[in-house]
């Protein structure tokens, strides 16, 4: 199986730059997920790797071979599209074998490889149906099957689960994870769903406006984000961000009636009067600690196993608090939300992490 190397990859549409120089190494057999808000360029980057978009600058190598100008069908890749892109006038079998026919494979070979893929995906009962006679999940499996048949070095997935309902999405997610284990191929997967990213990826690549914000293992990105953007993007519900000022060896929160929380250890090097953003994950409140905030609960959502309180002080932003079961809390109640000051993250006014 091949790895990929992207060096200074760029894409321009006229004067407009959408990918602004991306450097990335994908190891063989690695499962890499591109995430980012819509318009960040994650799909464009994937299509550049696929050969569906021209590369304006930089280098792309797959398995050590430069691929910039190589035709999409000859890069040793296969792609699963968001809308599945099954040929509506062909049966499942024809759909799966179509690429091999154009690669000049013999009929016997095609049949063998199609059957092989059908077995892996349990498609054999559906082989002679047309795509319109299949359910969403079945179409998805055929689309994956069509990719498997080609024995690609690299699999590309473009938001493959976004057209499925919630339950099927979980099922297919598990199936894709299983396939990765079984096939041992390199996978690049684009999604805007960070749960998919967290659960599937060996490595997550967070993109914003055509640039990589951070690359790393899912939990690394969660625990140790490089900047405020990544911290806000990874984790659900979102991390709370509170503006603060360093004053007299503590952090004062001007928007929260000037409440004071103790300095976390990393803040020691900050100068008096420095403006920072304090990042507290909702779940940090669950364990409690020496720091506390006086807040009024505005709304409480009970999910059964977990409850989230949305609380605020004055006109400041609402703070999301994970409360465990939290059944004895009620809206309108005044609370003291406690947390460990060592667990919070600090960011500069520019959004960089203070470490």
């Amino acid at each position, binding site marked *: 199986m091949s790895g990929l190397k992207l060096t200074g990859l760029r894409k321009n549409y006229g004067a407009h730059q959408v990918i602004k120089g991306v450097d990335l190494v994908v190891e063989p057999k690695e499962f890499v997920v591109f995430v980012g808000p819509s318009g960040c360029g994650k799909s464009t980057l994937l299509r550049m790797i696929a050969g569906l978009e*021209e*590369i*304006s*600058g930089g280098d792309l190598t797959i398995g050590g071979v430069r691929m*910039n*100008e190589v035709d999409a069908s000859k890069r040793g890749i296969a792609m699963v599209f968001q809308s599945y892109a099954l040929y509506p006038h062909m049966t499942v079998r024809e759909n799966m074998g179509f690429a091999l026919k154009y690669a000049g494979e013999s009929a016997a070979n095609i049949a063998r490889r199609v059957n092989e893929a059908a077995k892996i995906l349990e498609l054999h009962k559906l082989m002679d149906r047309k795509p319109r006679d299949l359910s969403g999940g079945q179409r998805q499996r055929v689309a994956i099957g069509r990719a498997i048949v080609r024995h690609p070095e690299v699999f590309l997935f473009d938001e493959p689960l976004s057209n499925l309902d919630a339950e099927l999405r979980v099922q297919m997610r598990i199936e894709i994870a299983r396939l990765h284990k079984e096939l041992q191929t390199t996978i690049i997967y684009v999604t805007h769903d960070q749960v998919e990213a967290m659960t599937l990826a060996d490595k997550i690549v967070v993109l914003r406006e055509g640039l990589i914000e951070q690359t790393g293992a899912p939990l690394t990105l969660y625990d140790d984000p490089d900047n405020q953007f990544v911290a806000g993007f990874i984790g659900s519900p979102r991390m709370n961000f509170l503006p603060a000022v360093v004053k007299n060896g503590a952090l004062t929160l001007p928007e929260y009636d000037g409440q004071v929380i103790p300095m976390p250890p990393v803040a020691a090097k900050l100068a008096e009067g420095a403006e920072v953003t304090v990042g507290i994950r909702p779940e940090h409140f669950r364990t409690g600690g020496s720091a506390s905030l006086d807040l009024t609960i505005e709304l409480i959502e009970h999910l059964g196993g977990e409850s989230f309180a949305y609380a605020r002080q004055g006109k400041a932003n609402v703070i999301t608090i994970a409360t465990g079961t939290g059944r004895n809390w009620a809206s309108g109640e005044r609370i003291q939300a406690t947390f460990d000051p060592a667990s919070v993250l600090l960011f500069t006014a520019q959004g960089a992490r203070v470490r």
Partner: protein
Amino acid sequence: MAGSRADLRANLTGWAFVAPALTLLGLFMAYPILWSLYMSFQTGKGMNFKFGGMSNIYRLTQDPVFLRALSNTMVFLVVQVPIMIVLSLLFAAALNNPKLRGRAILRTAIFLPCVTSLVAYSVLFKSMFAIDGVVNDSLLFLHIISEPIRWMIDPFWAKVLIIMAITWRWAGYNMVFYLAAMQNIDPSIYEAARIDGVPARARFFKITIPMLKPVILFTTVLSTIGTLQLFDEVNTITASQGIGGGPADSTLTLSLYIYNLTFRFMPSFGYAATVSWVIVILVGILSWVQFQVAKDR
């Protein structure tokens, strides 16, 4: 540049797909249009022509036959198009009622005339409206008239006949556009209006008609273009002895006049081209006016 070679190839492929059409259009459309524009400034008979400047345009203003063809065409346009559009809308609105019995049959029947060829239906009308033909007979029988109408002899009734014929042929055609557009209106809009207590008539005028505006505009422009080019009917229904536009040029249209100038008389290509550009300009002006009217409302 790395990408530019592939871009160039995609661009060439794009040209390859449109090339056959563009070649044909250049040859059989762009070139004739330019040629006729050029010709409209030439005078002379047959293939002997010379530059005449504005003389063709001057000739237009002095040519009683042209002025008659122009006024006939405008009469057809101003009377026939509104009548037909209103009729089509009425039919569509009535047929859009799902509780109506025989809906499919009615729709098919009213639509059917537009599958006939212009020639075929013209001939039918010609025979039905003969002086002692089936229409006069029926009207006499029903005591609507006391003596037969001279459809193809009286200039006024000849125009009426042409207007009825075009309306017969095209009302159902336009109706299908309106019906399709009405069926695309979200029924919950009507449900909301009913809950709001909007009466049926207001629902039609305040909801249906405004929502159909783009389609009405589209069909009006198409009908205008069609009527300005009216030819087949007046060259058949009101033709006698092989010459159309009768009686006494009372149904002569611009297109028919162009045809006559070119093929019936000693060909006068330059002047005929000038007349054809009158149609082009009329189509342009009227389409523009219709777009403006539709925009303001």
